């Protein structure tokens, strides 16, 4: 009897403690998601809309700007995420060596970019990559190139700047996750491997990497979601240009809703493309990770 009363009190407290969260998420997360799904089947401009069936989905396949935004987002994803994760792993492996000198300095320096706001660092990059700016000066001084590059005026180089910028901002962030995970690996495993004469690269490949797999998966999923939502950087460095070469899906949704004559239904359809991409890519990444285990 007494036990069931305690159980009931526990139940009541359990719900009471999460009630504010459930109300807020219900109103500002679940409801918008459902509404967005409904809206994606509506056509029309401004607040006048009517049911359009698959009109928006057909429009997607014929919209060159959408296809370009999709391609750009894909390029950023495929090129940037692997570069960043490999760099973060290398830095973490180097910093995990207790005999390394200036460890604290290196760790803080590489993590420092993470404390800047996305808007602030975007503007720093925009000013550094100006056509007669400091990056051109330094690169010519170091004989890395002969003539200045019009970084933000050329589609290829504009994409490169965006990729460099994101890598600068997030490598240290991922590194901290790897470093924390590496410090949780039992030191005696490395000791045993060293006594058995396993070389350093093999210890990294066959001990560190497998042990870090869950963290690598976690950061890959997080980075994928982040890249699919890319907005602040492109809006502040290139505003999607030149000629839409750095336009991303999020920026396109923003333009559709708040820049042009609002077409909310179509914007919702584009946003569901991101939802589906996130779902499919996360699922694939989990699948790949599971496969490797077997």
């Amino acid at each position, binding site marked *: 009897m007494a036990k069931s009363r305690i159980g009931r009190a526990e139940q009541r407290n359990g719900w009471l403690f*999460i009630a504010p969260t459930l109300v807020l998420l219900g109103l500002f*997360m679940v409801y918008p998601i459902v509404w967005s799904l409904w809206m994606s089947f509506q056509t029309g401009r401004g607040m006048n809309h009517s049911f359009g069936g698959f009109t928006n989905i057909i429009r997607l396949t014929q919209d060159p700007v959408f296809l370009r935004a999709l391609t750009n987002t894909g390029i950023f994803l495929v090129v940037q995420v692997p570069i960043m994760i490999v760099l973060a792993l290398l*830095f973490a492996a180097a910093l995990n060596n207790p005999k390394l000198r200036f460890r604290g300095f290196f760790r803080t320096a590489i993590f420092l970019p993470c404390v800047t*706001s996305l808007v602030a660092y975007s503007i720093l990059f925009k*000013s550094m990559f100006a056509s007669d700016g400091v990056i051109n000066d330094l690169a010519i001084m170091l004989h890395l190139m002969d003539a200045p590059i019009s970084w933000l005026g050329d589609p290829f180089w504009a994409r490169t700047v965006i990729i460099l910028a994101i890598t600068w901002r997030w490598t240290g962030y991922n590194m901290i996750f790897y470093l924390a995970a590496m410090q*949780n690996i039992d030191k005696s495993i490395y000791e045993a491997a060293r006594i058995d004469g396993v070389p350093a690269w093999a210890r990294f490949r066959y001990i560190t990497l497998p042990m870090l797999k869950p963290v690598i998966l976690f950061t890959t999923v997080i980075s994928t979601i982040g890249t699919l939502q890319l907005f602040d950087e492109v809006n502040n460095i290139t505003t999607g240009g030149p000629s839409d070469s750095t336009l991303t899906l999020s920026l396109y949704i923003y333009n559709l809703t708040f820049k042009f004559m609002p077409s909310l239904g179509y914007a919702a359809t584009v946003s569901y493309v991101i939802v589906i991409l996130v779902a499919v890519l996360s699922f694939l990444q989990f699948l790949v990770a599971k496969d490797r285990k077997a």
Partner: protein
Amino acid sequence: MSRVFAQARSGLVYAGLSLAAFVSIFPFFWMLVGTTNTAPDIIKGKITFGSALFDNITNLFAQVDMVQVFWNSTFLAIVGTVLTLAISSLAGYAFEMFPSKTRERVFAVLLLTLSIPFAAIMVPLFVMMAKLTLINTFTAILLPSIASVFIIFYFRQATKAFPHELRDAAKIDGLKEWQIFLYIYLPVMRSTYAAAIIIVFMANWNNYLWPLIVLQTNENKTLTLVVSSLASSYYPDYGVVMVATVLATLPTIIVFFLLQRRFVEGLTGSVK
């Protein structure tokens, strides 16, 4: 032979790390140098300190009501952080401490929403705020952010390490559940809270897309919005922009360095 090899490798490691540290720090140096130079000098890539610092500061304060803007950002960041931590840590604690099958299912649904990008709910959220006549208010900024699934998840993971005997002992002493949370759990989990403060404060302070949509008049704009709009004019005055950028970056750097040690503790503690 292998010693030469090891030395070469360690030299390579130091060279790589030094290059990474240089690349990481250079934009900060660039920002500080920029505050002292005129806009044409910045665009030409001048990397020595100039004498325009005073002019840049006066120009910024002449163009923008900086006191108001700084207050807006500070208010939103602090109130947002306090509310988020209160609501979300309470939920994370409850999901772990009061296990039940139904709540476990609710938690699984919450985790799914983590993969919903903000762009997907931005349009309906905006229409909703417009109907509630909350456009251009701080309420509209705060409401969607204070129940954070990421922070709930983080607190649930951290609560796994919270010793249950503490709760049992407190119960025997006659403490109610909310008292246990407030007087026992909160002080014990200091490091977890510190790490969460860094994450949430930075996210709120740096928030861009949602305020860009919602806050429409100048007296309500945040520092992040002002920096962005100063830099997006056709011929931005980069000297002024750099001063504003320093002001926008300083608070997060200060919060980070104040709580850094606890941040690493909180992060590694939650991974275990």
